[in-house]
C-alpha cells in the first residue's frame, strides 16, 4: 500500500501546499474533472494524495486513516487537545499564519486586557442575569485559555462563521476567532484584547503516530521525510 497524505482540498491553502512540496521536488496536482476531488503525486514513489477539508485532517490523522496531513496548528490543538500521542509536528510550512484572539467592541473603552474582560463579565452577569457570551468555534482552546487565566462568568456560544457579526446581532458580547490582518475585526468595530494571542497558528505538516505502516509504506515515508530535511 501507499503512504496517504491529506492536503486541504481547495483554495489558497491547497495551492500553497502544492508550492511548498514542489519546492522540495514533490509535484502534487489535482486530477480528473474540475470539481472532482482526486489528486496525484509525482517525483516520489508510493505516496497517495488525499484531498480533504482542512478541518477534517486532524481527525483523519488521529484515526490513523492518513499518514501525513497538512492543516493549521489551530485545528489540531482544538480537535486533538495537545494531541502529543496522536500526531507529530513535522514541519511548520511558513504560510496560513493566523492568531486566535479575543476581541470586544471598540466602544468598550474600559476594556483593554483579559483582566478587564473578567471584571466586565462579573458586572455583566450581575446586570443581565446571564453570563457574558463569547462567540467562537474554538471551544476547547478558548475555554482552556480562559480557565488557565482565571476568567469567570463567561459562556461560550457556538459560531461556525461570520463570528464578527454576532455582537451586532445581539447573540454575543465578545468573540474569539482566528485573524491574520485584523481587517474583518476592524470593519465590524471590534478590537483585539492586549497581550499574546491564545494561539499563533500556521499551516503545518503533521504525521500520524497511530497510522499502521507496512514495510513499503515505512520506506516511502522515510524517503519523503528525507526530502523535507
Amino acid at each position, binding site marked *: 500500500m501507499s503512504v496517504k497524505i491529506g492536503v486541504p482540498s481547495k483554495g489558497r491553502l491547497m495551492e500553497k501546499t502544492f508550492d511548498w512540496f514542489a519546492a522540495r521536488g514533490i509535484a502534487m496536482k489535482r486530477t480528473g474533472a474540475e470539481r472532482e476531488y482526486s489528486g496525484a503525486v509525482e517525483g516520489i514513489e508510493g505516496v497517495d494524495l488525499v484531498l480533504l477539508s482542512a478541518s477534517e485532517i486532524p481527525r483523519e490523522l488521529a484515526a490513523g486513516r492518513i499518514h501525513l496531513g497538512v492543516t493549521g496548528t489551530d485545528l489540531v490543538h482544538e480537535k486533538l487537545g495537545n494531541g502529543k500521542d496522536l500526531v507529530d509536528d513535522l514541519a511548520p510550512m511558513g504560510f496560513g499564519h493566523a492568531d486566535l484572539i479575543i476581541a470586544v*467592541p471598540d*466602544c468598550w*473603552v474600559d476594556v483593554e486586557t483579559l483582566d478587564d474582560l473578567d471584571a466586565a463579565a462579573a*458586572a455583566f452577569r450581575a446586570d*443581565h442575569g446571564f453570563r457574558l457570551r463569547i462567540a467562537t468555534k474554538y471551544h476547547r482552546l478558548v475555554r482552556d485559555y480562559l*480557565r488557565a487565566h482565571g476568567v*469567570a462568568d463567561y459562556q461560550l456560544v457556538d459560531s461556525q462563521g461570520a463570528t464578527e457579526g454576532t455582537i451586532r446581532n445581539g447573540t454575543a458580547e465578545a468573540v474569539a476567532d482566528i485573524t491574520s490582518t485584523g481587517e474583518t475585526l476592524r470593519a465590524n468595530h471590534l478590537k483585539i484584547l492586549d497581550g499574546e494571542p491564545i494561539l499563533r497558528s500556521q499551516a503545518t505538516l503533521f504525521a500520524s503516530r497511530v497510522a499502521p505502516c507496512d514495510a513499503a509504506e515505512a520506506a516511502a515515508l522515510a524517503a519523503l521525510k528525507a526530502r523535507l530535511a
Partner: protein
Amino acid sequence: MSIVTPAARAEGQRLFGAFQTWGAVPVEAAVLQPAETLLDLYGEDIRARAYVTQDPVQGEMMLRPDFTVPVVQAHMAVGAEPARYCYLGEVFRKQEDGGARASEYLQVGYEVFDRDQPLRADAEVFALFSRMLAGKGLRAATGDIGILIAAVKGLPTSDTRKAALMRHLWRPQRFRALLERFAGRAPLPKGRAELLARLAGGDPVASEAPQIGLRTRAEIEARMAKLAEDAATAPIPGDVVDALEALIQLSEKSRKALEDMRKIASVLPWIAPSLDLFEERLAVLAAHGVDVASLDFEASYGRTTLEYYDGFVFGFYAEARPDLPPVATGGRYDALTAVLGADQNGGRSIPAVGGVIRPALVVELEGRT
C-alpha cells in the same frame, strides 16, 4: 474509557449498605441532568469536565458529573431536617489525559443536612469516612475554606475589592494577582493608568465607535466610575497581605496549624472567630475518635476543585500511589444550597456536608480487580 468491574460494584454496595446502616436514606438521581443548572453553578469550566448531550425536548443535558446537585434538589423538594442521604452510582467525567484516568466510575456518597449542629455534622462525616477507609494506607488531608472566606471578608479595604477577591477565591493564581495589585505591589493592567488619568481630568472617555452589543454605555460608565473609585482606594497594608499569603500557604499538622494561625490572627484579628470554630471542630473530631494530632491541615485545600465548598473540606489519598486520584473527597457546601434553593426557599441556605468514595480505587488498592 473504563468499565465498572464486578469487584468495584460489590465494594460500592458494601459501602452503600454501611451508610444505610449508619442511618442514611438511599436516594436515586437521574443520569441525565439539565445542563443549565450545572452551567449556572459551575460556569463554562464544567463543559471541560462533563459530557454534554442534546435532548430534543429537554434541551442540553449533562451526564451526571456528581450527585451533589441532584441530592440537594431532592432534599429541598421533600426533605425535613436533619436528614442523612446516601447514594451509589456512576458519574461521568471527561479526562484530558488520553484515557489514563477513568471517565466513568462509581461513586458512593453520604450527605448530611443539619442546621443545628454543623461542627458535629462535619465531624460525623469525616469520622465515618475515616472508619470506613481505615487500614488502607490512606492519608487524610483537611482544610477549612471558612477561614479563608473570613480572612478576605475582614480585610481593611473596599467592598468592591473584597467582592473581587471572593469571586476568585477558587482561582488561586488570579486571587494572588489581585491581592498583589490591591496591595499596590503589582503594576496596573495595560492601559489602566491612561484611562484613570483621563477620568481624573474629567474626560468622559467617549468612543467614536458605534455602540454595538448588549453591554450599554451606561454599564461602561459604571465600570469606569468603579475603576476611578478603586484608584482612590488606599492599598491594603503590606503586613496584612503578607499574613494572608502566609495563611493561604499554611500546611501543617492540625494542632500546629492552629497555633500558627493564631499567630497570623495577630495581624488578621478578624479571623479569630473562624479559628475558634476550627479549634472547636478539632475537639469534636477528637471526640469522634479522630487522631487530630496527626491530622494534616492545608489552608488552601479544596480551592482548586469546582467552586462550591465553603467550610470544612477533606480528602483521602493513597500514599503509596501518588498516581491515583483521591480515594474519597468531601466537605461543607452551605452556599451551594442557597444558590440552588433560590427558587424554592428564597435563597435560604441549608447547612450541608458530605463526601464521596470511589469504590474502584478501594478495590485497586487492595489488589483486587
